[in-house]
C-alpha cells in the first residue's frame, strides 16, 4: 500500500472495531479457530514442497496428498522414535508429575526462607507461612476442583485438533481455486485492486506465520544454549516447549519460565543457583526477544505501530482471553490490509463510475431485443 493510499482515522476506527468483533466471535468459536491456525501454519510450511511437486508434473490433488502424507508419516516416525528413546520412568507418570510439583513447591519454600533470613521485613510479614498455607489449600483440593475439568477439556479439544490436518489438505488442494473463485465474483472495475488485496492478505498471513516459526526456532536455540550452559537437564525439549508456549504473549512466557524453574529446582534441589540461573536465562532471552528477534521477525511482518501492537494485545486479552492474546496480531494485520484496500476502493470515484458504466452496458446488452 502506497503512502498516499494509507487509511485515514475513519477507516482505522473501522479496522479496530472489526478486529474487536472478530475477537469476540473467536472466543465463541475457539474449537474451530485453533485447528484453523494449526492448519494455516502447516499450509504455509507445506506449500513450497507442494509447488515443487506440481512443477515436476504432479497433479494438484496428488501433490497435496503426497506432501501431507509424507509430513504426517515423518512426524509420526519422529514421535515414535522420541517416545522410544526417552527414558521411561520407573514410577508412573502421575508420580513423576507429583515429584516435579513437589520440587517446585520446595523451591518456593526455600526461596521464601532465604528471603526471610536475608530481609527481616519479609520475616515480619510471615511470608513462608503465607506461602505454605496457600500451597496447602491449593494442592489439597486440586484433584477435586480442577483435575476433572482439565481432563474433560483436554478430551473435548482432541477431536477438534484432528481437524487441522484435514484443513491443511484442503487449503493445499483448493487454495488456488478458492482464490480464483473469489476473484471471479469481483466486478471488472475492481478486479486488479482485489487481486492486490487477496495477495496482500495472503502475504500478511504468510509473513506472520513465517515470522512465528522463525521466532520459535530462534527462541528454542537461545533457551537451549542458555539452559545447557547452566546445567539444566533436557535443554532442547524445555527450550522448544517454552518457545511454543511463548506464542501466547505474556502468559505463555510466564508458564514456560515456571516449567523450566520447576524442572531445574527438582533436578538439583541442593543447588538453587541453577533454578535462579534458569530465571536469569528466561529474562535475558525474553529481553532479546522483545527488542531484537521479535521486531526482526513478527514486527517487520505486520508493519503495525508498536504502541498499537501493545494496546491491541491488551484489548485481545480482555475480549477473548488467552486465544485473544495469541490471535489479535494476525487478525489485526489481515483486517488492516482488507480495511485499507476497501477504503481505497470505496473512495475511488473513477472505479465506481467505471463499475456503474459496466453495469449499464450489461443491462443494455441483456435487453437489446426486448421492448
Amino acid at each position, binding site marked *: 500500500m*502506497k503512502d498516499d493510499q494509507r487509511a485515514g482515522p475513519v477507516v482505522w476506527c473501522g479496522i479496530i472495531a472489526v478486529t474487536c468483533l472478530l475477537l469476540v466471535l473467536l472466543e465463541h468459536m475457539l474449537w474451530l479457530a485453533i485447528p484453523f491456525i494449526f492448519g494455516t501454519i502447516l499450509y504455509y510450511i507445506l506449500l*513450497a514442497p507442494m*509447488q*515443487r511437486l*506440481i*512443477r515436476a*508434473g504432479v497433479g494438484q490433488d496428488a501433490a497435496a496428498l503426497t506432501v501431507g502424507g509424507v509430513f504426517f508419516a515423518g512426524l509420526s516416525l519422529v514421535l515414535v522414535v522420541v517416545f522410544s528413546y526417552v527414558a521411561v520412568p520407573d514410577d508412573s507418570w502421575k508420580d513423576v508429575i507429583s515429584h516435579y510439583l513437589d520440587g517446585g513447591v520446595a523451591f518456593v519454600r526455600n526461596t521464601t526462607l532465604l528471603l526471610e533470613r536475608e530481609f527481616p521485613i519479609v520475616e515480619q510479614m510471615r511470608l513462608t507461612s503465607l506461602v505454605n498455607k496457600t500451597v496447602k489449600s491449593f494442592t489439597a483440593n486440586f484433584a477435586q476442583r480442577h483435575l476433572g475439568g482439565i481432563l474433560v477439556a483436554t478430551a473435548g479439544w482432541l477431536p477438534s485438533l484432528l481437524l487441522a490436518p484435514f484443513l491443511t489438505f484442503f487449503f493445499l488442494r483448493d487454495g*488456488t481455486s478458492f482464490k*480464483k473463485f473469489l*476473484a*471471479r465474483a469481483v466486478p*471488472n*472495475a475492481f*478486479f*486488479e*485492486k482485489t*487481486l*492486490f488485496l487477496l*495477495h496482500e492478505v495472503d*502475504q500478511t498471513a504468510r509473513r506472520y506465520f513465517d515470522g512465528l516459526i522463525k521466532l520459535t526456532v530462534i527462541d528454542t536455540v537461545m533457551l537451549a544454549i542458555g539452559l545447557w550452559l547452566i546445567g539444566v537437564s533436557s535443554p532442547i525439549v524445555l527450550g522448544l516447549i517454552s518457545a511454543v508456549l511463548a506464542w501466547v504473549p505474556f502468559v505463555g512466557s510466564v508458564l514456560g519460565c515456571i516449567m523450566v524453574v520447576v524442572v531445574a529446582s527438582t533436578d538439583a534441589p541442593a543447588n538453587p543457583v541453577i533454578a535462579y540461573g534458569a530465571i536469569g536465562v528466561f529474562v535475558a532471552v525474553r529481553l532479546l526477544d522483545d527488542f531484537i528477534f521479535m521486531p526482526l521477525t513478527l514486527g517487520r511482518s505486520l508493519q503495525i505501530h508498536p504502541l498499537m501492537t501493545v494496546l491491541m494485545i491488551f484489548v485481545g486479552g480482555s475480549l477473548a482471553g488467552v486465544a485473544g492474546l495469541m490471535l489479535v496480531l494476525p487478525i489485526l494485520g489481515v483486517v488492516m490490509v482488507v480495511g485499507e484496500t476497501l477504503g481505497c476502493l470505496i473512495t475511488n470515484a*473513477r472505479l465506481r463510475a*467505471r463499475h456503474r*458504466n*459496466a453495469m449499464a*452496458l*450489461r443491462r443494455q*446488452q441483456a435487453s437489446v431485443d426486448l421492448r
Partner: protein
Amino acid sequence: MIFGFLKSPPLSPRLHRLKNSALFHSLTALELKIVDGLMHERRYLTDEIVFDEGEEGQALYLVTSGRVVISRSHGSGFNVVAELGPGSVFGDLALLDDSPRNAQARAMENCELAVFFRADFLGLMETDAVIGYKISLNLARLIGQRLRDWMGGRPQVEAL
C-alpha cells in the same frame, strides 16, 4: 508407436491460445499448464474499460478472443494508438514495475482476456527460474520489437 507414451499430451484449446501468444510461445506444455493455473479469466463487453491511463498497473492482459483498443488522452479527446486481436498482450510493463498505466485499454467488442497478476509473475520468477527466464526473455523481445518499431517510425507501440 512403442514410445508413444513419452509424447506430451495434446494441448487443450485454452493452452493453445496461450502457446500462440508472443509471451508464452517458448513454454513447454507443463510450463503452460503451470502458468495457466495462475491466470484469471475475465469477460468484457463492448466499450467497457479494462484499465485507465494513469491507473496503478497490477497485471498483464492477454487477448484470448475479441478486440481491444489502446488509446491515449490528447487534449480533450483520445488518440487511438493500437487495436489488438487474439494472441496480443498488453499492460506488460506492469509486470516490470508498478508505474502508472500510460494508456487506456477498452474493449472494442465483447472479448475474453486472460490476466496475469504481477505478484504471481514475481512469485514464479522466485520459485521457478526456468519459466521466469523464458517469460522475461519473451517480454524483453517484445519490448525490443516495440522499440525497433518506434524507431522505424511507428509511434503507436510506445503506449503499450
